[in-house]
């Protein structure tokens, strides 16, 4: 009897937790498909429309440009940081270089620096270089946040790969670079992919840098949200449609790497 009650309580709690997580997301998705007048009512009885999506993608909102900026910034940031970080992670994982611990600590400790400290000097530098409101500027500052994080994550994955096969190949006369290319990379691929997706998510959601360094040309999706606050008040149905556009690609990716995801985000931390 007591066990049955516990069983029920446990299930009930799990349902409540899932509900708390899903509710705000669901409400946003519903609102995105509501007509403006329905958006301001709590009724679930409405005729769904895709008008909001058509509106946000046309003048004056031009969400398409923001999607483009977000994609370019995130993809290029990943394309630069992940290869560089993978090499560094391999070195940190396999070699006993002098000053290695210090260097690794230095790189990790940059994660403890508030972004606002970094963005002030970047704002001044980009201002004098004429790089304000460009995608290049956003890519550069995003590298600052993402690179140390990715090094740390990929190192965790490489640490978990046994060194035996590498050593065997070296004894057979393969060079270290060959070993990296033919043995380590294929084995670390899932970890590197997971890290790349993490990196993409961080950059995609990044708000502070984009808010400060972009004005019109380089505005990314999260900053674009703020533009739906107008003199006429907050346009919730349009904000929700934009929110769906921000969320869907990220959710798809997160669920795609779901198994590795939890391991990746906790691997380094727990050790």
């Amino acid at each position, binding site marked *: 009897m007591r066990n049955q009650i516990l069983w029920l309580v446990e299930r009930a709690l799990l349902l409540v937790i899932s509900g708390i997580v899903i509710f*705000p997301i669901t409400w946003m998705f519903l609102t995105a498909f509501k007509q403006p007048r329905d958006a301001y009512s709590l009724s679930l009885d409405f005729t769904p429309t895709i008008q909001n999506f058509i509106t946000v993608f046309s003048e004056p909102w031009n969400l398409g440009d923001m999607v483009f900026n977000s994609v370019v910034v995130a993809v290029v940031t990943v394309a630069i940081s992940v290869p560089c970080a993978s090499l*560094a992670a391999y*070195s940190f994982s396999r070699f006993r*270089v002098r000053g290695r611990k210090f260097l690794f600590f230095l790189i990790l400790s940059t994660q403890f620096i508030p972004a606002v400290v970094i963005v002030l000097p970047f704002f001044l530098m980009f201002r004098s270089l004429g790089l304000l409101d460009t995608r290049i500027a956003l890519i550069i500052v995003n590298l*600052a946040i993402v690179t140390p994080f990715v090094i740390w994550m990929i190192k965790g994955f490489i640490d978990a790969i046994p060194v035996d096969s590498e050593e065997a190949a070296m004894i057979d006369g393969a060079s270290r670079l060959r070993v990296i290319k033919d043995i380590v990379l294929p084995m670390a691929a899932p970890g590197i992919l997971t890290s790349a997706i993490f990196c993409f998510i961080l950059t995609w959601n990044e708000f502070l840098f984009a808010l400060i360094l972009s004005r019109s040309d380089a505005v990314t999706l999260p900053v674009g949200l703020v533009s739906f606050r107008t003199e006429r008040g907050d346009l919730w149905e349009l904000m929700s449609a934009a929110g769906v556009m921000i969320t869907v690609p990220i959710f798809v990716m997160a669920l795609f790497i779901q198994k590795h995801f939890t391991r990746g985000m906790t691997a380094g931390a727990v050790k």
Partner: protein
Amino acid sequence: MRERLLPHFLLVPAFLIVLATTIYPLAYSLVTSFREWDLTKQRRPGDFVGLGNYLEAATESAFLNSLWVTTVFVVSSVVLTLVFAFSMALLLRRTGRLHTFTRIILILPFAMSPALIGVSYRFMFNPEFGVLAKGLGQLFPVLEGIPWLADPDLAMGILVATDVWHWTPYMTFMCLGGLASIPKETEEAARVDGASNLRIIFEIVLPQMKGVLLVTAVLKTIFALKMFDQVVTLTGGGPGISTETLAFFIFNVGFKWFDMGYASALAWILTLIMMAISAWYVRMLLSERKVVAA
């Protein structure tokens, strides 16, 4: 020879990125923090004023307010997130279909843009047509017609709620990782001896989880100190200055008033606070490790 230098070469690209995008800007802002540089008045950096900018902070009430706001926010957010994350991890470590489903669902808040979380809570707590403001009013008549975000304490509460909602899942996964790594034997032995679930959790599981919980606490504290996005999209620092955290205050000084010298000094104060807290935690963690090892 080539083989011997390889370990260093592999580090070069990443190190150059970190050097150019973090170390250099840090040095730049440190130097700026000792200068007078008001962008509305001067294009080029002005005179060195020593600790002038730092002293200005010490006497400014808006800065002291932001320190207080940040403290309230960080403490409530860290404590709530940790308590929820640990409890949820205890619930989720068993297997079952509903458990698996919940674990998958939990990935979503972490993947969601914090700016968007702020926007969606602002919508849900809108007193006229927000689903939570209205829904809570219907369920508990006392709460009917409360102007949620216009009340300083409630606005802070909702700000904390967005952050807890965002981070609890991540921290739950960290706790789950920790729970998976502690040996099951002692727990089972205690169960055989007839110890209650609560006693097992408090006297056997919790002491072994100390290290993991400490790491979780450090990370959460750092994230909470950095939190910025939701302040902009949820409260805008208001009502008044009641939710103006230090990060948001620095943003205002730098990019509304364009006082670069003062903003840099404030940013460095925040950095020092974060470094001090991390160092303190790391020391606790190290002494913890020694105890466990012994």
